[in-house]
Structures are given as structure tokens and as C-alpha cells.
């Protein structure tokens, strides 16, 4: 089995939430063991939901191989926007929103100024998708229609029961991409076949999932070299404006 020379993990998590826990040093150890060069990490738990500054500092101070996907709960309003401004100054590469945990509908007014700020900064937005009511992937599609210049990523790929919505969701707008971390391989393959490998990003969902499991799921698809390069690093480099490989 061969994999792309460089692997970027588009969705790791740092901090603590209920039973999940991961520090930057432990993530780096797991990245090294799996041959992952860079991980985009977002905060977990209280750092994601209420204490955004602490959560963002955690992911922004973990560098240089861990890049920050920062979050501000839209219900913080102007204070949340100011936190995003601060994060931009210290190198955030995109925004993460969890409508389930942060308690908002993607289509309601509260998050709209946050989408506008992402647009202004040319930041992609990774949404947690998959849980019913708040984290409906079709709600994210509606937001993607309204903000066609923002690149969106369907975090967790609709896991679990929105697997039957996810492919059509990706196909219905050009600016929505799949985080392949938790979707089963048949679902990932369908998206690659119908819409191309440029719509899929490798993600680990560490510490919920494990690198070895996420990587082998993609290995079993027997991807071409070009598809591997797109999924393992090319798409993330393009969408998150990362420095190109040397």
C-alpha cells in the first residue's frame, strides 16, 4: 500500500469534552506514528462552546505542525466576532462551528455575522454535521448557497445517519466538501466517483477516531495517485490556504 508523500489531517480536536481528551503533545505523537505532517485542530468541550478564548488559544499555540481552526459561539455576538479578529492576528486558518453543541440553527440570524467575517477573512468554515435538528447537513447546504464565495467543509461527513444525505448535499453546491473522518468507505467512494476527489479531505476525528482506522478506510478505496494527492493534502492546502509543500 502506498499513500501520498504528505498527509494533512483536516479535522483533529484538542481539549476535553465528556470522555474525549487530547493534548497537543499527544496529538503530535499520534501524527508522527501515522506519518501525518500537519493537523488542523479545533477545540473541544467548554473551549468550543462557552470559553472560546481558552479553546482557541489551545489550538493556536500548538504549532507549527498543528494549525488552528478557531471557533466563537455565535450567541456571543460582537464579543465572539472580536475573538475571531484576535485569532486571525495569531494565525488561525479557518473557522469551526458546531451548531449542535453551540446551540444554533445554521440558517438563523445569529451566526450570519460570523459567516460574513469568514468571508471577509477568506476563511473556510468547517461545520460539525450529522446530528438531527441543529447539525443537519442540508442546513449547511442552505448556508453554502447564500455564501457562494466561502468554502465549507461538512465535518464528520454527516456521521452517522445522514450518510444517505451527504453525497447529494456535496453535489448540490460547489463550495461544500467532505471531511472523510467518520463516513464509511462506500459513502466516501460514492462522493469521489460522482463529484471528484477534489471534494474530499482526509480527516482523523482524533481523539474520537484513530489515525490508523481513518487511513486504512481510504487505503481500501485503492485511489489513484492523483486522487490520493488531492485527498491527503492538495485539497486542504488549497481550501485552507496553507503553505505549499516543499
Amino acid at each position: 500500500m502506498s499513500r501520498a508523500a504528505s498527509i494533512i489531517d483536516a479535522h483533529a480536536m484538542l481539549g476535553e469534552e465528556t470522555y474525549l481528551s487530547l493534548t497537543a503533545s499527544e496529538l503530535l505523537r499520534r501524527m508522527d506514528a501515522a506519518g501525518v505532517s500537519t493537523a488542523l485542530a479545533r477545540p473541544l468541550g467548554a473551549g468550543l462552546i462557552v470559553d472560546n478564548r481558552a479553546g482557541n488559544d489551545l489550538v493556536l499555540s500548538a504549532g507549527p505542525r498543528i494549525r488552528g481552526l478557531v471557533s466563537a459561539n455565535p450567541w456571543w455576538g460582537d464579543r465572539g466576532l472580536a475573538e475571531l479578529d484576535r485569532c486571525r492576528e495569531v494565525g488561525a486558518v479557518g473557522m469551526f462551528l458546531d451548531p449542535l453543541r453551540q446551540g444554533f440553527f445554521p440558517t438563523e440570524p445569529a451566526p450570519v455575522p460570523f459567516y460574513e467575517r469568514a468571508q471577509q477573512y477568506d476563511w473556510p468554515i468547517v461545520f460539525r454535521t450529522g446530528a438531527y435538528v441543529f447539525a443537519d447537513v442540508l442546513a449547511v447546504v442552505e448556508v453554502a448557497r447564500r455564501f457562494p464565495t466561502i468554502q465549507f467543509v461538512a465535518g464528520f461527513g454527516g456521521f452517522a445517519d445522514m450518510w444517505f444525505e451527504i453525497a447529494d448535499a456535496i453535489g448540490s453546491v460547489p463550495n461544500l466538501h467532505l471531511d472523510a473522518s467518520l463516513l464509511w468507505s462506500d459513502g466516501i467512494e460514492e462522493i469521489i466517483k460522482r463529484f471528484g476527489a477534489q471534494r474530499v479531505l482526509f480527516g482523523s476525528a482524533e481523539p474520537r477516531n484513530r489515525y490508523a482506522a481513518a487511513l486504512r478506510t481510504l487505503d481500501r478505496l485503492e485511489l489513484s495517485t492523483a486522487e490520493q494527492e488531492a485527498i491527503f493534502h492538495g485539497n486542504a492546502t488549497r481550501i485552507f490556504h496553507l503553505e505549499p509543500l516543499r
Partner: protein
Amino acid sequence: MTRIIDFHTHLDERWLHVKCDSAADMVRTLDRFEVEAACVFTIMGFYEPCPAHNDALLRRADQYPDRLIPFATVDPKQGRAAADELERCLANPRFRGVKFHPWLQAFAASMLRDTMLDVLQIAARHRVPVLLHDGTPPYSTTYQVANLARWSPETTIVLGHAGSADYVDAAAQLMRDIPNLYGCYCGPRAGDLRRLLDLAGPEKILFGSDFGAAGWRLLPERIDNVLEAGLTDQQLELILAGNAARLLKLDERPLAQPLLPHREEAR
């Protein structure tokens, strides 16, 4: 590597418009990943009248009586007929369990409490486990499924996905607190398995893959989810096979041997 029994697979002709693997395909996949036996459930029987689907499932499973273990399903919306159908199926010792998918079968157990109690009591009398899809509102939340175990403490109830994507912590607590509630680890990931183990203990967790509902790759994906969780050999043995063997009473009632050797022709 320890032995493996897959407690959650589907064996049907099709899922709506998508064709599914045959019994021979399924056994080839089991062989490839060294899985000794699999519990097999219908899919179209969740949408259509159950008796014909129970019969069809039994016919398919009977091609490999030493490998495929059919679970019957019934439609509790049919009232007495559901209980009768379950008695009919369980009179055949080949059926070793009952499967419900309240979401696809479109019933809230709380609206059919009398029938569900009858059905759970029948399963208890035949000493077979009842596995239900969990993790999905509005009919299959983990709490709804766990409630059935409280209604009928004599019945072994298995959460079909041990909380699935969004209810793992709830599943772990409920499996800990309710003696007759188990969890099929089918869908959650290694980080979730650690929580299930910490709260509910290794005797309450059974490996399942759900393959048959999707292609063969789902089986090794889901085996990886177990193997990557850093378990001890003893935990692996219980989760991958020991607990399933106990609930299926394989010691007391070993699986039938095939009438003719079939392994070669299946390859």
C-alpha cells in the same frame, strides 16, 4: 488474533433499489477477515410484511448453518399477529435472536407497549436476545431502546449501535445501570469504545459491523475500530467473540454443521 463473531449484519436481496451481497458473498467476506460466524438480519423486512422476509432470511442463512445465525423480526403494529409470528419463528431453533429497527419499521414502542411487552416476554421465554437499532430520533433513541430493558428485566436487550454517533455516553451509562442491557459496538469509534468499557465493562459490549447494509469494506473498518482502541487480550476476546457466544448460547447449542462441505464452492 482472537476469534470473531459479528453480532450485527444484514443479509437480504436488496435495500430498496440497491442490490445486496448474497450469502455466498457474505461468507467469503467472513472468511477473508477470519470471522467465524455472523448474526444476520433482514433489511426489506423492516419495510414489508415480516413473515415472508423471515422465511427468506432463514433460507439464505441455511445455506451456511455453521456460519450465519438468523434473527427474526416482527411488526408490533400488527398486535397479536406480531407475537404469533415471533412464536412461529422461534419454534425453529435456527433463529437465535430478534431484531427491531423501530425507525425503519415506523413505530414508537411506547405507543405499542402491550404488544412490545408480549414480544419481549416471548424472547425471554425462548432465551434469545433482542437487538434494536439505536442512536436515531424519533423512534430509536438510545434512551427509548434502553427503556425496553427496564420494562422487561427478564429480556436481554442489545443496543444495536451502542449509542451510534450522538448517544455513546448515554449508552455507556445505561449499559452500566441496567443489568439486562448490552451494547453492540457497531458504528462508534475507538475513543467511544474506551468510554463504553470504562462505564459498562467488557462483558456488556459485543462487536458488530452492519456489513451487508453496505459493502464488504465495512467489516474490516469496524474490526479496526476495535483493534485500534488499545484493549487487553481479555477485553478483545470478550468483545469480539466471548460475549456473543454467551448470549447466543453457542456452548449449549453449537451451530449446526453443514450437510455438505461448502467452503470450497463458496470461494
